[in-house]
């Protein structure tokens, strides 16, 4: 290519537009349509997130300017904060109990609904309802009433001659009432399981029944393996949700995380530090540790898929 052709059509000293500028010009209408979401993402999500990352390295009480404190918040968390350990313990126990129980319950109900019954849409809606209501303040208040010393649960137990304790005031039981509340909100994973079960061709079960496989063997050898992509999806979503759980613990314990820190969820502790004691820098550090924990669990889940998740294609 000669110089003449290279500069052909362009004035001396003026460069042709760069690829980026050309691309921007061509795609401008697209970016304009995207702009509401982009503005929302940068201003309301990414900006505050990066701001909180910065604040996690500071001392900040909302009233005076943040003071840079290096990694002292993280060091304090790891070495000198007994409540951090307590919150971690409660949260991990809650996740470890509520997620498998909720998934198992959701799968059991989905299998029941998948057997083809009359009025299925009605049952499906009824079973899904708690998921819509469960995270609300009203249901948490109701839960508090149900499991109180003079609540409905103890009234029912009394019919059978059992004198129940005050479930939410007793540190031995309080967390489990929240686990039950979580399991009760099985609707969302149940609907996804139901969709997954519908995807399994009926002739797989017919072939297995001709082979003499019992219902239990069919469940273990066919249903569960073919459902693993759906189980994996539900596992990740529900684990993230469980780590982030806040409202039930806040309402049931009156925001204290009590009795004796037995319902001190990680997010509740974070809330106390931020809005109870105005330690915004420390609360930001707590938030980023939670992000790291959730990211770590999610990454581990994805890495484990090659050992147990069966994708058809």
């Amino acid at each position, binding site marked *: 290519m000669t110089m003449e052709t290279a500069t052909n059509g362009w004035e001396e000293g003026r460069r042709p537009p760069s690829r980026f500028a050309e691309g921007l010009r061509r795609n401008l209408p697209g970016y304009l349509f995207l702009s509401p979401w982009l503005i929302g993402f940068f201003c309301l999500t990414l900006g505050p997130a990066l701001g909180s990352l910065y604040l996690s390295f500071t001392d900040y009480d909302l009233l005076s300017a943040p003071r840079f404190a290096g990694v002292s918040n993280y060091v304090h968390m790891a070495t000198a904060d007994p409540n951090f350990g307590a919150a971690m313990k409660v949260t991990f126990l809650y996740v470890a109990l509520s997620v498998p129980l909720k998934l198992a319950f959701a799968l059991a109900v989905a299998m029941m609904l998948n057997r083809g019954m009359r009025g299925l849409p009605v049952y499906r809606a009824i079973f899904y309802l708690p998921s819509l209501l469960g995270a609300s303040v009203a249901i948490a208040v109701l839960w508090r009433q149900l499991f109180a010393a003079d609540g409905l649960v103890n009234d029912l137990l009394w019919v059978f001659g059992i004198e129940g304790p005050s479930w939410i005031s007793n540190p031995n039981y309080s967390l489990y009432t929240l686990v039950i509340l979580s399991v009760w909100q099985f609707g969302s994973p149940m609907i996804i399981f139901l969709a997954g079960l519908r995807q399994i061709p009926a*002739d*797989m079960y*017919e072939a297995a029944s*001709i082979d003499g496989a019992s219902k239990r063997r069919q469940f273990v050898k066919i249903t569960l393996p073919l459902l*693993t992509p759906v189980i994996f999806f539900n596992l990740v979503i529900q684990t993230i949700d469980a780590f982030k759980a806040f409202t039930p613990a806040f309402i049931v314990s009156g925001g204290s995380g009590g009795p004796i820190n037995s319902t001190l969820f990680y997010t509740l502790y974070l809330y106390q530090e931020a809005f109870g004691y105005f330690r915004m820098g420390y609360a930001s550090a707590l938030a980023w540790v939670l992000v790291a924990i959730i990211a770590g669990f999610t990454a581990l889940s994805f890495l484990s898929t090659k050992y147990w998740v069966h994708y058809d294609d």
Partner: protein
Amino acid sequence: MTTPIRLRNVTKRFGAVEVIRDLDLDIEPGQFTVFVGPSGCGKSTLLRMIAGLETISDGDLLIGGQRMNDTPASKRGIAMVFQSYALYPHMSVRKNLAFGLETMRMSRAEIDRRVNAAAETLQITQLLERRPKALSGGQRQRVAIGRSIVRDPDIFLFDEPLSNLDAELRVQMRVEISKLHERLGNTMIYVTHDQVEAMTMADRIVVLKGGQVMQAGTPLELYNSPANRFVAGFIGSPKMNFLDATASEAGIDVAGQRLDGIAARPAPGRLTFGIRPEHVEIGSGGGGASLGEARVDLVEHLGGTTVLYAVTPSGESLNVVAPGQQGIRTGDVLPLRLDPANAHVFAEDGSALRRSA
């Protein structure tokens, strides 16, 4: 290995809908029986009732002389190959083949022996460690058949097993299934809507329509002596020509021509005259009966044969399969004739009139 199947007054209802009606059928030991019929005729339902995948509403199913109505599928001594193959996608071919044997709690050594033997028979040994998704349609079909063979069943059931394969592979697998039957000698029931598959594979064909047996017999019995107009039209490709006819004391008139030499002697009245396209001859000379002239609407040159789509002067369609390559063009008007021995005559209710009648 060779087990007879008897169906006695078998009925199947789904709610108020009767899909199989009072059906009687005997399937002899070692026979390759094909259930054939159009969509919705009940052929797959009948097979699934024999398999134990559908309950029997009324009547009796006897396998090897034993009433099997309430016996679970796994205890009927059957194996089934599904249209969709029904292979377990999360298991290797080896595990797919072994699944039923493991369910029977067979020893590992015996499982390995049977799986390897079946794989060798079907030439899929090199595929044993693969997953179904890594197999072609034909290979999947072989695995599905292999899963049946390893169980060493008394009866093989095939539910439209070749429908998902391309034409070439279908022909190849058809031959292989026939060879398998010759080698194993088991009773086999095969469901298809493809009459060519039925004609080429069956010892005996059962033609179904509306949940009832229209005719059961050998392929050539059905071809040469269809019991009714439905069977006559269903068996054979291109399908049999049907022309309006009138019977009188003097003889049978078809397409304005008096046909002499027809063996059937029906009572005077309206009839349907049937002649297969390959039995219609072109030309006015020679023996046989004249069908008059017909105008050619379309010509298909297949090389070995030429298919003509023609119309009679009365406006009725008449197809002709002529041997070899014919220099016939659309618009030609041809004289046609036939050998009366090949003619079929059907009463108004569709039943065939016996040639000896």
